[in-house]
């Protein structure tokens, strides 16, 4: 039970970072922290006590294995996370090029 709570605390730290930080790169870092906690949460759910890694070896059949489905989901989610992070960094590079600063207060070009 404690590991799930710690994992959610990590998620909340990332959320806190996104809400309060002014710096664009800090927001990108906080988003990748939230991402890490989501992956950890999925893998914690899939763990089975005393289970082996999900590799079947023909030598010793029918062992107790860890649940492979959350691992497949996290594999997909990691690459989605890489895609969103690289797109976010591309936008940050261009915003730094145009505005000359990472601080969100000076970037308030848009109303509302």
């Amino acid at each position, binding site marked *: 039970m404690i590991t799930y709570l710690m994992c959610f605390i990590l*998620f909340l730290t990332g*959320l806190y970072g*996104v809400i309060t930080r002014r710096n*664009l790169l800090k*927001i990108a870092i906080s*988003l990748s922290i*939230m*991402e890490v906690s*989501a992956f950890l*949460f*999925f893998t914690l*759910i899939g763990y089975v006590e005393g289970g082996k890694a999900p590799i079947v070896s023909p030598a010793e059949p029918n062992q107790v294995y860890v649940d492979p*489905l*959350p691992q497949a*989901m996290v594999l*997909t*989610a990691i690459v*989605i996370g890489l*895609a*969103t992070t690289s*797109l*976010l960094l591309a*936008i*940050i590079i*261009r*915003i730094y090029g*145009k*505005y000359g600063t990472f601080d969100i207060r000076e*970037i308030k*070009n*848009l109303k*509302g």
Partner: protein
Amino acid sequence: MNPVIPILVIVPLAGAFLMMLLGRLIRDLPKYFTSVIMLFLVIASFYSLINIGPGISVYKTGGWEPINKIPIGIYMVLDGYSAIMLCIISTIGFLSAVYSISFIKRYTGENYYYALFFLMVAGMNGVVLSGDLFNIYVFLEISVIASYALVAFGVGKSELEASFKYQVLGSIASFLILFGIGLIYWKTKTLNIADIREVFKNGYDNTYYVFVQLLILSGFGLKAAIMPFHAWLPDAHSSAPSPISAMLSGVFIKAVGIYVIIRLFFNMFVISEEVALLITSLGALSMVLGVFLAVGQWDIKRLLAYSSISQMGYVILSAGAGMILISRGEKPEVAALAITGGLFHLINHAAFKGLLFLNAGAIEYRLGTRNLKEMGGLSEKMPITSATSFIASMSISGIPPFNGFFSKLIIIVACVRARFYLLAILAVIVSIVTLATFLKLQRYAFYNKGSDNESHSVKEVDGPMVFSMITLGILCILLGLLAFPSFRELVLKPAVDILMNADIYIVKIIGM
């Protein structure tokens, strides 16, 4: 197992990749290639709408049959409700693809625009067709990432900042959805929507259940720009290129946001009354605040973006009213009427909001400005644009002969019969304020002689843009016919039946 279902997703995907390859060889292949493929998609989706009727057709990818009644592979599900969404996606997609043939000449990097456009359509088709929770998340990510890049396509100062804000909020929403899926998998150990409802039926802890529903609602609610999460919509929709903001407002927030909310809350969750009350109040809140924010805007596209929020409030409100009635178990025919009104308004809003954004794009294409104060007297110089904009403005504010009137009428009648008088009064007030907003838009943009823009050459926009606008205008008028019982039976009734009693959905999928 009809093969149309995977074709509807593969064709736009393969189109995007083929076009990236061939785009370098043949100079202007992408422009016409996109419109041809989107036309094929229109035909395929209308074919699937007609021949699906009240049935549900399940496509088991990979050919994995369920083992003792538990589905193991990913199921692609086509039913009345998703067929309607497919038709909206492909029609508005086709018209904005034709529109952008001449609009995107002003932008550099056309190949990337058309490839991202295809990927966005493929992602939306994937979300609408999938019956598996994690699969909805993956295809949602495809269309969302494509829309991040398309919002920032102009690479100007405000576009980049709008896209950054949109992406940060979108990423938070995706993580909330991931946590929701994690919690659901933790309890039910399965990902198939029908199977999850099977497990949820036999008992759940209430705090857990409400928390999961809140997570999923806020995740997809942010994609649908419901009021507390709407901050990104006005910037993103106003700084995107016009055909893209027509797609975003007309189709994207529906297919990725509202469709999934209605599908999950009717077919997956066992509806509880307090969550239904929350959804209805969120809908009413976004309906009222959206229109009051829209009245004060002077940028034409921000005005349209805010009015999108309030029109979506109508749809959420009617779906929420249906949910309350179902959760209380009283008056099922009034709940069915409310949901019919919601879906009908969804279809109408796609037509007239898409048309309004295309008109704003035509004005911006010719005048280069989006500020209502600098426009004026366009009705003589751009007759077609002003005519279609008049049709769209009248139908969005619910003037009788046009389609907006019928759908708002059904929603208000449903609210009155369900004795939610407050909601009915709010709906009428918002409709009046919407009429005021769009009269202001018409007066300043088209009929106000005051301004001095006679000097530079303002003439009607050329071929493809005019074709799209005229077709959408005709659609706005024809869609009004859906209100009559004969047409409503054919199109809306199957969708409402599936949403009303989720057991048909389960028996068809688990039973198969």
